[in-house]
């Protein structure tokens, strides 16, 4: 494939994310039951199933339209905190994506815009034990890879590795946002469910967009 993400590649990414969320639904819920309210897996799965249904019912015609549709569907189906947060992430990405193929640099800018949207909506800072702790490192790794002129596939792999490291880094953190924050010290020692699902989002890009050797 060309070193860029076209509409069909982005669709594969969304479908792969939906598949991963469905696959890992119980794990996400289990993590959430330790420090939240035990609904993250169910809510994300309900939302991403609705996203896939909507893709089939009304196929979008360009990347921006695809990302907007995903964002709007999540906002109107999920509720809780993850609906507005993931919804905002995709809606902000749509604002950068445009109607053509995304190269590594555009992808990095789009994901960064998504992260900025999440931060603006949820007011979380790095280290608060949230999805920002996975997405932030993923964006930083992408920017670095782009600056070095890495291929798209390489950039995506590095960002996925950084997200996973960020996710693991949430274990010792003290939660300062969301329901987990009520636990105070008792939130320490648990992996954040939001950082876990955000890592799946970045992982899905590697699988769907960067076939071996990409």
């Amino acid at each position, binding site marked *: 494939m060309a070193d860029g993400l076209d509409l069909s590649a982005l669709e594969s990414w969304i479908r792969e994310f939906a598949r991963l969320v469905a696959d890992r639904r119980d794990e996400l819920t289990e993590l959430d039951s330790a420090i939240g*309210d*035990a609904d993250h897996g169910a809510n994300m799965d309900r939302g991403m199933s609705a996203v896939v249904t909507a893709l089939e019912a009304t196929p979008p015609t360009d990347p921006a339209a695809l990302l907007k549709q995903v964002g709007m569907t999540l906002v109107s189906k999920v*509720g*809780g*905190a993850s609906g507005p*947060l993931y919804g905002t992430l995709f809606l902000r990405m749509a604002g950068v994506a445009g109607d053509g193929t995304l190269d590594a640099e555009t992808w990095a800018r789009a994901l960064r815009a998504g992260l900025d949207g999440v931060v603006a909506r*949820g007011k979380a800072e790095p280290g608060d034990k949230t999805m920002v702790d996975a997405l932030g490192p993923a964006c930083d790794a992408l920017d670095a890879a782009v600056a070095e002129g890495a291929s798209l596939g390489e950039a995506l792999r590095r960002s996925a590795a950084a997200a996973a490291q960020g996710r693991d880094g949430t274990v010792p953190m003290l939660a300062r946002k969301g*329901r987990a924050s*009520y636990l*105070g010290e008792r939130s320490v020692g648990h992996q954040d469910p939001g950082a876990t699902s955000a890592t799946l989002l970045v992982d899905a890009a590697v699988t769907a967009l960067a076939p071996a050797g990409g």
Partner: protein
Amino acid sequence: MKKLINDPSHVVADALRGMALAHPELRVDHDKRIVVRSDAPVQGKVGLVSGGGSGHEPMHAGFVGLGMLDAACPGEVFTSPVPDQIVAATQAVDGGAGVLHIVKNYTGDVMNFEMAAELVAAESGTEVVPVVIDDDVAVQDSLYTAGRRGVGVTVLAEKIAGAAAEQGRPLAEVADVARRVDTNGRSMGMALTSCTVPAAGHPTFELPEGEMEIGIGIHGEPGRRRVPVAPAREVAEMLVEPILADLDFASGEGVIAFVNGMGGTPLIELYVMYAEVAAILEKSGVPIARNLVGSYITSLEMAGCSVTLLKADDELLRLWDAPVRTPALRWGV
């Protein structure tokens, strides 16, 4: 799990069907999932919209009607409503004087109401003012948390702001009344048992026989500490003392004292608790001007209670006394 339900995933929809049949004076839109006062929009009146996860009944749909809410948006059990619901409710109650959103301080609720307000602003000229309720003294340090949770004061704010709106006051004044209730109200809750979310099928947390959780939230969020079960007199002290320590209630013109059941506690126990709360307040020099005893903001079948005190003044008491006609609160009409 033993529950009177058909299917865990249909609980909210099925309950709304029953509510619509039991209360023909309300308009229930099952597609948009909103409950609206039947004469809405009332021209020239500020509209009051609230909402949140289901499982806290009668809050919020049970407070829709004359002198209280114009519309409620029930989400899934313990999950905030989505922006579409809030937008639909806001449009349904917009009588030209603007709409007040009463939002409990939970991350999801705040974000969904915020997105709804942005959508309303983009689509129409309706003025929306949000007031966030955060009265739970069990959450101590708001610098390092999502902040205090919205609990019992929500009921009082909806009643009192609803009365102000019914008098035809402008949006800024109605919002100011709601904020004053939040600023002058504090709550603290406790649980004797956990609750079971229908979709989860098992208790939200483990609470051994012989222990209780002091400072519990209305979704089973943990409180300040877990202690052995004690007589009502001591439980009342554990709830009232942190409230009195947080705000000077003795300097006002009395309080509205609200003893609330969490869903699984019988009224006889709530009266036992009210007697103890009243005794502590008398000893502390805090006169009770009005009271409310019953289960109004619940947590499914959780056994336990919460105490809410609102430092009142003449105006807030007049608004409290004003007529209200809703499924759950009804007087003066």
